[in-house]
C-alpha cells in the first residue's frame, strides 16, 4: 500500500457511537462555515495577534501530542524530508490542503500551501457574510500543524519552532506561504 492508502487506512468509524478515529485519536469533521465563524469570533473577541497566537498554539500542541501517539511508525528512523512528506500526505487526507516544503535549512524553512483549508474556507464565505477584504492571514491552525510536523521530523521538542504565515490567499496572495523558524 502507498502512503496515502496507509493514512486512509488509519481512519475508523464506529457507526454505533458516531465516533471517528485516526488510529487511537478521536477526530471529527467540521466545515468551512463553522471553522471560519469560530475563527472570526476569536478575532473579534481577542484581536488579530492574540487570536492568531491562540489558534496556532492550540493546533500546534494538540497536533504534536496526537502525532506522537499515532505516527510513531512514520517518524521513527526516517529522514526529516520523508517524515514531512508523509505527514503532509496525512494532512491532505484530513482535508487541510496541499503543503509542500520549498526550502529547508539549518534553522528553519519555508512551506507553501496551495491550497490551504482555512484560506479556501474564508474566500468561500467572505462575500456571503459581507466580511471585508483582509490584509492578514487566516491559516493559523495550518501553521500549527506545520510546526508539529517540522518538530517531529527533525526530532525537536514541542515548542521548538515558530511558524508564521507570510503570504495568504485569503489576503490576496496567489497561495499561502509559511516561514518556519527554529527558536
Amino acid at each position, binding site marked *: 500500500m502507498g502512503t496515502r492508502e496507509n493514512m486512509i487506512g488509519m*481512519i475508523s468509524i464506529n457507526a454505533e*457511537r458516531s465516533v471517528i478515529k485516526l488510529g487511537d*485519536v478521536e477526530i471529527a469533521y467540521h466545515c468551512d*462555515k463553522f471553522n471560519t*465563524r469560530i475563527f472570526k469570533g476569536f478575532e473579534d473577541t481577542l484581536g488579530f495577534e492574540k487570536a492568531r497566537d491562540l489558534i496556532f498554539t492550540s*493546533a500546534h500542541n494538540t497536533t504534536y501530542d496526537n502525532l506522537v501517539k499515532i505516527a510513531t511508525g512514520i517518524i521513527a528512523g526516517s529522514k526529516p524530508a520523508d517524515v514531512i512528506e508523509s505527514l503532509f500526505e496525512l494532512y491532505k487526507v484530513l482535508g487541510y490542503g496541499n503543503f509542500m516544503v520549498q526550502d529547508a535549512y539549518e534553522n528553519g524553512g519555508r512551506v507553501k500551501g496551495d491550497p490551504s483549508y482555512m484560506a479556501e474556507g474564508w474566500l468561500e464565505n467572505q462575500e456571503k457574510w459581507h466580511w471585508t477584504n483582509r490584509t492578514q492571514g487566516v491559516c493559523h491552525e495550518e501553521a500549527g500543524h506545520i510546526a508539529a510536523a517540522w518538530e517531529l521530523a527533525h526530532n525537536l521538542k514541542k515548542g521548538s519552532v515558530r511558524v508564521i504565515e507570510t503570504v495568504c490567499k485569503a489576503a490576496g496572495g496567489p497561495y499561502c506561504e509559511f516561514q518556519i523558524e527554529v527558536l
Partner: protein
Amino acid sequence: MAIDHDSIRNAFLGLGLVGDQQSGILRRFGVILAANTSDFLVGREFDLIDSMGGEPSRRLTERVLIDAAQWCANSTFQGIMDSPEWKTLIEPNIKNIQDRLSGLVAITNCLGWGKIIDWHLTEENKTLYFSVKYSYYVDAYKRRYGKNSAFPICYMWTGVAAGYLDLLFGTSPNTFTATESNCSAIGGDLCAFEAKLAKTKFGFN
C-alpha cells in the same frame, strides 16, 4: 417512507471522507470539510475562555462559541440540503418537517460529533429537544482537565440545536436559542439540548 438512517450513513460514508489526492481539499454536500482532533476542537474553545479571564466572563465567551455554531448549523445544513447528494439520497423521502429534521440528524450523526439518539420537535410551539451520547466535548474536556466539568460545555451542539430550528422554520439566524440542560461532562452519559424561540437578541433569555 421514513428516513432510513443506516442507508444515509452508508451512502454518506461511501462518498469517502478524505481530502482530494491533489488539492487536499474535501468538498462534500456543498461544504468544505476538514477532520480535526477533538482535542484541538475543544481545546481552542477552552483556550478562548481562559484567555478571556476564565470564570468571570465565561458566559459571554460561551455565547461567542454558541453563536458561531448556530450560524454554522444554518449555513452548513442549508448547503447540505441544497447539494445534489441530499437531493438524490434524502429529499425524495421527505414528506414533512419531521422527516427533514430526521434527515439532518442522520447526516449529523456521520460527522464524528457523537450520536443524537433521541429527538422531539414540537411544531406548534416551535421547540426542539434532543439528546446526544458520546459528545466529543466530554472526553476531550476530561483529558484536558482530568476531572468532570462544573458546567455544561457542549457549545457547538447548543448552537446546532438552535440552528436546526432557524433552518427548519426558515427564519434568520438567532431567531431561536438553545441551552444544554444536561451535560455528561458534569455526570451521566447523556447530553441534552432544548431549543425555543429567542425572546431577546443573542440568546440571553
